[in-house]
């Protein structure tokens, strides 16, 4: 019997078994006792040919329905240049592992070095790592970094306006470890930092905030870093990195840690994964940084090259004393972001951010004219905004009517928080990719429902 992807012929097996002094394939497992060896094959289906699998997947794929997405909440439908898929599919990028052997991996290492550089440039920070899993896990890594950077501190202050899923992932992180999250309440749709002095004490390792926040609103962090630093606490700012083409960067706010997810920079929606977490820090925190780090050095002949460096922070060296347990990261997704940014340049990034801003405001402005829905808070936003409906039935009808037009109208905040109070809030995301026709289609349908 021939199985896929196994090249051995009967003759090969015979030669090889003979060489190792065995007479059957079964004997290879003689180290496993009878009580452990399975008597039957595992109950999954028999193998299929390529064509059979493709047909089966084609049929399953039909049960996914696409629409014009005005959906965001951490995952956005931006334009991606065709260079990204083409170049990130090159087999020696795709089928390599972590570049442990620098001499044979200069291409991979250089691409990571360029990624680190771009993250630093965009966030205005000093050092960035080679990537983390996703934005939510970048937040847990930031929390871990803070706790380890300040002796005897076990409390992390967290803005209650961060993405609800990020908050949930942080809550999981704190569970059972003696670390606590202390929430900073919101006011008028943004974090209320006037509460900071009363919440901040010696136990606090730092503060995590997010802008655009869970409502899509932009926040100001004027003077926050100074207040925290007085208590030897750190400031971590999470962003949609594309928004940093317009709004102040973490470095400009004086943050110590910049985190987020590069999904908006060249990655597909992909049902939410893989995306790509990032973290950049001030130089003083270099040795606290989790994950892989690529640096430039030179060989004995003075030739410059790249290598994994500062590995003494990592689990394969330090084991239980490492800065994090991360091993695999999201390198290929980071490569996609690197190719994306290389194609766009800063001007392209600014253009994408500006157009998203303009189109989101166009839609928001016209929706706000309709009865039964309001843009509650008079706060600046970028490409996503919260619409508050006056009654849940209208909201459901609104979503259904737009769905009939092939439009996914937005995300109900309650889908993320599972809270009744959020049931009337619809988050609408508009990127540069949405055409004028799509915006008008949305508005026409909205006017029909909300008249």
């Amino acid at each position, binding site marked *: 019997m021939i199985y896929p992807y196994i090249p051995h012929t009967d003759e090969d097996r015979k030669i090889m078994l003979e060489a190792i002094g065995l007479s059957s394939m079964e004997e290879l*497992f003689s180290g496993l006792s009878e009580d452990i060896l399975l008597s039957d094959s595992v109950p999954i289906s028999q193998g*299929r040919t390529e064509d059979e699998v493709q047909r089966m997947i084609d049929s399953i794929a039909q049960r996914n329905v696409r629409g014009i997405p005005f959906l965001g909440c951490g995952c956005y439908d931006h334009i991606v240049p065709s260079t990204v898929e083409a170049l990130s599919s090159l087999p020696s990028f795709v089928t390599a592992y972590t570049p442990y052997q620098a001499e044979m991996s200069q291409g991979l290492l250089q691409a990571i070095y360029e990624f680190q550089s771009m993250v630093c440039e965009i966030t205005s920070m000093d050092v960035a790592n080679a990537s983390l899993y996703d934005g939510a896990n970048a937040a847990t890594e930031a929390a871990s970094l803070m706790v380890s950077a300040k002796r005897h501190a076990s409390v992390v202050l967290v803005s209650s306006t961060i993405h609800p899923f990020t908050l949930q992932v942080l809550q999981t992180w704190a569970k059972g470890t003696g670390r606590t999250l202390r929430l900073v309440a919101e006011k008028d749709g943004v974090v209320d930092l006037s509460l900071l002095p009363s919440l901040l004490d010696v136990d606090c390792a730092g503060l995590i905030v997010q802008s655009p926040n869970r409502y899509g609103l932009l926040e100001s962090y004027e003077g926050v870093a100074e207040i925290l630093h007085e208590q030897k606490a750190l400031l971590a700012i999470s962003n949609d990195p594309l928004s940093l083409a317009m709004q102040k960067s973490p470095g400009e706010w004086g943050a110590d840690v910049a985190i987020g997810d590069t999904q908006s920079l060249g990655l597909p*929606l992909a*049902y939410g994964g893989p995306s790509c977490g990032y973290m950049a820090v001030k130089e003083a925190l270099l040795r606290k940084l989790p994950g892989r780090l690529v640096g430039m050095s030179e060989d004995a002949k003075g030739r410059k090259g790249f290598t994994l460096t500062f590995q003494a922070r990592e689990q394969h060296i330090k084991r239980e004393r490492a800065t994090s347990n991360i091993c695999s990261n999201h390198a290929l997704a980071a490569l996609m972001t690197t190719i994306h940014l290389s194609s766009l340049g800063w001007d392209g990034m600014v253009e994408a951010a500006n157009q998203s*801003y303009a189109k989101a405001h166009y839609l928001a402005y016209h929706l706000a004219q309709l009865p039964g829905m309001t843009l509650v808070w008079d706060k600046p936003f970028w490409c996503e905004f919260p619409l508050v409906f006056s009654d849940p039935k209208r909201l459901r009808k609104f979503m259904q009517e737009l769905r009939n037009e092939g439009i996914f109208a937005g995300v109900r905040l309650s889908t993320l928080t599972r809270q009744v109070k959020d049931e009337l809030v619809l988050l609408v995301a508009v990127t540069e990719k949405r055409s004028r026709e799509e915006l008008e289609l949305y508005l026409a349908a909205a006017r029909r429902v909300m008249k």
Partner: protein
Amino acid sequence: MREPLLIDQSKQGRKAYCYPPLDLPKGFSQALPPLPKSIQREQLARLPEVSELDVVRHFTRLSTMAHGVDNGMYPLGSCTMKYNPKLSEHIAKMDAFTKIHPLQDVSTTQGSLSIMFNLLEDLSSITGMKWGTLQPLAGAHGEYTGLKMVKAYFEKRGETGRTKILIPSSAHGTNPASAMVNGFEVLSIEANEKGQVDLDDLEAKLDDSVAAVMMTNPNTLGIFEQDILIISKMVHAHGAMMYYDGANMNAILGMATPGEMGFDVVHLNLHKTFATPHGGGGPGSGPVMVNDALRPFLPKPDIQLTDSGYVLDWESEDSIGKVSMFWGNFLVLLRAYVYILRMGSEGLRSASAHAVLNANYVAKRLADVCEIPYGTQCMHEFVISLEEYRQKYGIRAQDVAKALIDKGYHPPTMYFPSLVSEALMIEPTESESLETLEAFILVFRSILAQAKEDPEYVKGAPYSTPVGRLDEVKAIKEPNLRY
């Protein structure tokens, strides 16, 4: 540096991509106020300004300075660098999967949900467990998730004194690190002369302060832990749990299951065992499978099949909560599902059998030129020691590794596990043919022969690469981590 940084190829005003012009009414665009000055960015970011062809050539050239499974044999022990089917890559690029938003109504994502649901069923069968989660995004993330559940389980039972995790000294570094991240204390278990868990040492360290024992089976020496049923019994008798690190699952597919061995919680590495590409360091995927006792603690949401189709269920009260932003690395899960569909139960079993055959064959053919401290009979990988070469010729494992690079092979894992000095850990995988293995063996033997005759030459390797061995001390003393 053979290829300049792209930023150094920049020329102001050059563009690789142009956006369509903004097509809103002029009046609106002009009246639209900018962001308030107080939150506006001031600094420019330095990104490349190059043409599309510049981008294409840059990354194409970089890709020629990388080595993947598609380029040649990659016997990197404990990483299972098997062939990544092109069919999986093709399917993972289908619009029907890449253009689906994670927060679409579930009625519009039944295809993706059915793939996740069925993958979970298959992984349950393969591991002999009953329930699971696909949310963890890598192997170490799976460890984090599994141990978090163990912790929640004992807290729920009021057994808060269980603060320790026992881990064999040969375990992957992620094991102790994941235990640490969850606030556990780590105790190391010693290996006996057969390279397996020392039962006396285990017994001495087991008490009611132990939450779990983390094991890889076969272990990192490529040896099957033959006392595994006794170990499970001992651990359970002390009320602790058995954690299975699935890094070496490629040795036992269809032959044995962690469930039958007595494990309570298992993580898998889809990017190892289930042939999804490693991507130069990720993304991977680390599903966690559990038994009944741990089920209530699985991350939320859970995918369930109801009369109205697949749903995301958030009701679980004892759940540890979410561990990633959305539902998992879907495109990785999809690739693994395609691989399982192609292989079927017999194909998976055959994959493991041939992975073990290949490892034993290479071990046998190298045994007369280097020491294999725990014997040549192995599972899917084996560890050699070059200690003798170090003592006699000053040749270290690293030197042999670098010499292999000149011959077009990715080196084996070096200096791991630490109980073998000058270790090289070799995992050929089932993907390699007899001819490829023979060629590798001949090259390996010729390098060892050269190490005796001309050690200085081997110490100077590699010679064929864009750079030689880089100064690692300089990389730390004069950090250059960005342009």
